[in-house]
């Protein structure tokens, strides 16, 4: 079973463990500890690069002019205006910043697993802008991500799209104007028949049928709730006095938004039957599913997906990690694309997100997508799925200057991100990162020494029973209250 997904489905406690084992995975671990947002010169010119616009082909020796965070000009020979900061990208490749349609980074809490309808919870409230995974994913060229609730619930929490503005406070992360979403989940994870915990009652539902009934039940409630409010508002408008308003219900409000088309549904799923089930339920209640996530059997129902206008966000080549993933094939993305489905490749994992470019490239081998089609899987297509394609996803005049600069063709296995820009700010710079490492190590060493001195005295005093060799051990290193896990640690 896929580790990330398994943990996501299980519990926030496991998520914590998962987060604990991550720091060893990536070399940029400590390189941007106390991030402060970088300066944004108002005019930047990237020149001499191979510019892969995604929308209108590749420009050799191309330039991109950025003004106030937006792309002002794209072409072959653009003169640097006075005062412009010039980035010489000779021999380098620029693509639109990668968009990850399924991510669980930057959150202090992932899953409210206690109930099967947890639509009252919202990822926006638990955003953790200090999560190092933001920086790690930036280093993989990701500039926007759809932050989703876990998949333990038929109807999970509210999701949102963020930009990976490392160093900015939580309030600056949300992608301005992007429609909010909500996570649904079908199949094994919400039915939880494989996740029973000894000594604990099994949560309803326990079958795919139960998942369907749970979703129907929630939308019936939401419909009634909407009716009650509509009626109340009507009576108030008619001038009636002394009316007791209906109670506000935070669980049902987002579902009413779904019914009203103000909130996207992103549904985790695997099997064709459950995919068709949700399409039927959505039709019955009159809402739209925006994307199916993972959707490993999507190739079997590609025509139905295309007809319903639903996006598919899948993996490149993972299968058989769980019973419902046995029928997965690496041709999924290509086959669905050929049938007219808007397809993206997502990460579902902070580590995976650092090489989504390679994940996209696999669809060229499996299914024969073109270079541009493959690139679209992680740029324009997820932008369309998230409703942000007017702002990002291609390199076009007027769009946000969210760009990733590679040293090789981004679809090559040798490609390494050199710079990642969001809104025309360089949020990741590989050269600077490497240059900073020594400095950071130096500061860490100095602080460790200082703290050792300050904390040693009381320790010695309090535990005179310690033998000398015990005292010579390195100082205590795991903090009781860390930056990310202080007073709310228990809530994870």
């Amino acid at each position: 079973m896929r580790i990330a997904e398994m943990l996501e489905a299980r519990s926030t406690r496991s998520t914590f463990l998962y987060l604990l084992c991550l720091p060893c995975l990536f070399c940029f671990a400590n390189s941007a500890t106390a991030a402060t947002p970088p300066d944004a010169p108002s005019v930047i010119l990237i020149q001499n690069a191979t510019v892969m616009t995604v929308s209108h082909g590749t420009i050799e020796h191309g330039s991109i002019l950025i003004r106030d965070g937006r792309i002002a000009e794209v072409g072959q020979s653009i003169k640097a205006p006075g005062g412009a900061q010039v980035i010489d990208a000779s021999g380098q490749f620029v693509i639109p910043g990668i968009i990850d349609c399924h991510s669980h980074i930057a959150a202090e809490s992932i899953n409210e697993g206690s109930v099967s309808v947890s639509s009252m919870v919202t990822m926006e409230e638990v955003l953790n802008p200090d999560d190092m995974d933001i920086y790690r994913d930036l280093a993989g060229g990701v500039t926007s991500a759809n932050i989703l609730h876990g998949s333990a619930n038929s109807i999970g929490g509210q999701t949102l799209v963020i930009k990976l503005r490392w160093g900015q406070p939580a309030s600056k992360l949300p992608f301005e104007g992007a429609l909010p979403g909500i996570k649904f989940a079908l199949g094994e994870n919400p039915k939880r028949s494989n996740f029973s915990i000894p000594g604990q009652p099994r949560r309803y539902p326990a079958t795919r049928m139960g998942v369907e009934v749970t979703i129907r039940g929630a939308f019936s409630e939401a419909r009634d709730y909407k009716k009650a409010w509509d009626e109340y508002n009507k009576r108030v408008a008619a001038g009636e006095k002394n009316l007791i308003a209906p109670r506000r219900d935070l669980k049902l409000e987002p579902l009413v938004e779904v019914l009203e088309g103000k909130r996207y549904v992103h549904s985790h799923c695997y099997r064709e039957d459950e995919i068709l089930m949700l399409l039927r339920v959505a039709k019955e209640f009159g809402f739209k599913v925006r994307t199916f996530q993972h959707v490993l059997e999507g190739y079997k129902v590609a025509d139905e997906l295309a007809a319903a206008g639903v996006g598919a966000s899948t993996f490149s080549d993972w299968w058989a990690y769980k019973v419902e993933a046995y029928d997965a094939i690496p041709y999924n993305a290509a086959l669905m694309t050929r049938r007219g489905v808007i397809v993206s490749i997502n990460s579902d994992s902070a580590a995976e997100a650092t090489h989504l470019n390679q994940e996209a490239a696999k669809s060229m081998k499996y299914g024969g997508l073109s270079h541009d089609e493959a690139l679209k899987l992680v740029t324009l297509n997820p932008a369309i799925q998230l409703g942000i394609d007017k702002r990002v996803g291609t390199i076009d005049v007027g769009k946000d200057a969210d760009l990733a600069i590679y040293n090789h063709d981004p679809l090559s296995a040798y490609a390494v991100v050199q710079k990642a820009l969001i809104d025309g700010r360089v949020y990741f710079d590989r050269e600077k990162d490497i240059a900073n490492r020594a400095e950071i190590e130096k500061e860490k060493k100095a602080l460790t020494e200082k703290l050792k001195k300050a904390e040693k005295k009381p320790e010695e005093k309090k535990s005179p029973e310690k033998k000398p060799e015990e005292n010579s051990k390195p100082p205590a290193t795991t903090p009781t209250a860390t930056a990310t896990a202080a007073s709310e640690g228990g809530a994870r």
Partner: protein
Amino acid sequence: MRLKLLCRCASTLCFAALLILVFHPPAAHAQGGEPQFFAIRGAKVFPVSGPPIEGATVVISRGVITAIGKDAAIPPEAWVIDGKGLHVYPGLVDAFSDVGIPAAPPASGEGGGPRRGAPEQARGPQDRPASTPWRSGAEEVSLSDKRVETWRSGGFTTVICAPKGGFFPGQAAVLSLAGERAGDLVVKTPVAIPLSFQASGGFGGGFPDSLLGILSYIHQVWLDTDWSVKAQAMYEKNPRGVARPRYDRTEAALAEALEDHALVLVPANNRVQLRRALELIERWQVSGGIYGGQMGYEVAPEIAAKKVPVLVDLKWPEGEKDADPEAKPSLRTLRFRDRAPSTPEAFAKAGVKFAFYSGGISAPKDILKAAKKSIDAGLASDAALRAFTLSPAEIFGVADRLGSIENGKIANLVVTDGDLFEEKTKIKMVFVDGRRFEVHEPEKPKDPPKGDITGKWKLSYNTPEGAEESTADLTMDKDGTITGSLTSHRGTANIISGYLSGDKFSFTINIVLDQGATDVTFTGTFDGTSLKGSIAVMGMSLDFTGVKPGNASADTTVQGGAQ
């Protein structure tokens, strides 16, 4: 003007004296021999509301401060204390604590009401999981909590006390740390509604089991409370033909506390949490405060802009004692540990109103030591003093009656032999509500200790009621000072003083017997493996012996002592 004042003082005094003569001829004996008039003469007085006054006199009459100044008249019946060389401070306030509530919580479901007793798995907000906002520090305070004395002896005359446990643990009250009955301790209630974001049940314990769920739950409860107030009012006006809004204990308790202007206290320690707390307070439209606050140095101006007061947890972050030596803390963690004590100064500079609280610190001496770290990190010592006195009084709306040394305020005072924040300074006496408590300086060991008495000891002795056993959990410093606790069937009491000098040991606990709080002193000899000696309690002397029950439990003791 001055003459008038003097006259007024004099006439008040005369009147007071008359009262005493008429109604209580032997005033000193009327209340169990406890004097009610004091004058501390010629001390250095720190009123906090104004600059320190050298050589000043503070007069206390029947629980309140009645005069302060260089020329304050001393009433003839006052017990005069020579304040030469002494400092007088307002009684210290622990701004967020459960001191006063004995460890064992009352049985849940107590007091009736529609709530069920046994906690079932909550299926949603409607089940009101882990919410007891009707509990109250004022209701649950009990003099049997030994920490009342411990805190008082450490200079704390006041605590903001709230029950613990759950997302809405209960209401906080301002308590004075002395009295005959529990009710005597209550100064004001409710003053705050603390929240907690700790999921108590853990995963599988029902809704909510994550920070996500907890926040959504609290949102829903505030909405419901607001709805309930409006709906009830509507229904009262016109009950006919309308469905009756249901009664909900959580909503009712919260609505009432909010009406009493209780401050909603939000937990937040790092910068992400602090910013989130500011947003939550704004969203809930409540008068809010923050507790924790240790990474405030990063966001002080933002907090100041929102005018949200912060209770700063003095249990500064530090490395875990038994940490995995391979685990390297991140730079962010190291910086946090280094800079946390600079938060109070950052708050002072930015204009954030802040007060100190003990957090996880279990000895009052260590609370002041932790505050000293902030002074070392740049905080002016008068600002530190304010964070222990007038600021918490202002935050909790009791600055009209305590928090500074001013005429008419409650006579809560700490008298020391020097600067409060200097480690070598001794607290000489404490006044709570005008009652004087002497602080006994623990005897210093004369000789270096022979051996190490640290460990868990089983003590056996015979009382008039029969044979008894208790467990002494002792930790010894290099210089022989003994700290720890003693647990018997009566409960657990902390050791208030103790030492090992040569092979002679002595340690004292303070427990509540029928007659009131009593010191119990254990003295004897330590031969390296066992204890032998006598217990002095209320004029009696009992022989006792002590042994270590085994290595396994001794190890536990070592860990316990190091925390």
